[in-house]
């Protein structure tokens, strides 16, 4: 399946834009997604940390990604 990934802050710079389309297996997990992205964008591994959000909620590594989910990469936040 193709999923669309939203990017913010420094990950927008790393991906070269505010969104990204990736190919994932149907039963892919957050962990699989991270592995794929880190392969294509090694700079991701240099971040202090980063999270994945699914449908506006922080997701765990074991959570499954579905085709129409709104997926976002959340680099270290720094609001306030």
């Amino acid at each position, binding site marked *: 399946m193709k999923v669309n990934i*939203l990017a*913010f*802050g*420094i990950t*927008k*710079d790393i991906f070269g834009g505010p969104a990204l389309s990736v190919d994932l297996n149907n039963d892919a997990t957050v962990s699989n997604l991270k592995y794929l992205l880190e392969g294509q964008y090694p700079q991701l591994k*240099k*971040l*202090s940390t980063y999270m994945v*959000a699914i449908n*506006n*909620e*922080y997701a765990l590594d074991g959570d499954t990604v579905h085709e129409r989910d709104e997926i*976002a990469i*959340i*680099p*270290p*936040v*720094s*609001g*306030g």
Partner: protein
Amino acid sequence: MDIEIKLSVTTLDVQHCIDWVMSPECGGIDVFIGTVRNATKGKAVLRLAFEAYEKMAIKELEKIAQQALDKWPVQKILIHHRTGVLQVGEIPVIIAVATAHRDAAFDACRYIIDTLKQTVPIWKKEIFEDGEVWVAAHP
């Protein structure tokens, strides 16, 4: 409604925030106002740029406000946060908490700003004379 949450591309209005939380049942209001500093770690900052994942940021801010309402006897909570480019002296964030007694106002306000900085998907870029940096991105 006891909670007002807003992301705004225009100047935040302190007086509005205080007027909104004030109520005849309350004896104390604690307000935290973030302001853009002219330096970070000894280096001159020209301006800041804030970016938010808006839908999720609102959702996380609502969670934090709700947690504060659950943890302390709080009447009203307001959280306004700027996005876009801010000059030195401008206001990125205002948090206002009204309570019957002041201890809860201080505790809740501090909890909200501390938690906001940890969990809410908003990012700050510091812009210097010679470059720019996304704050906290790298170790």
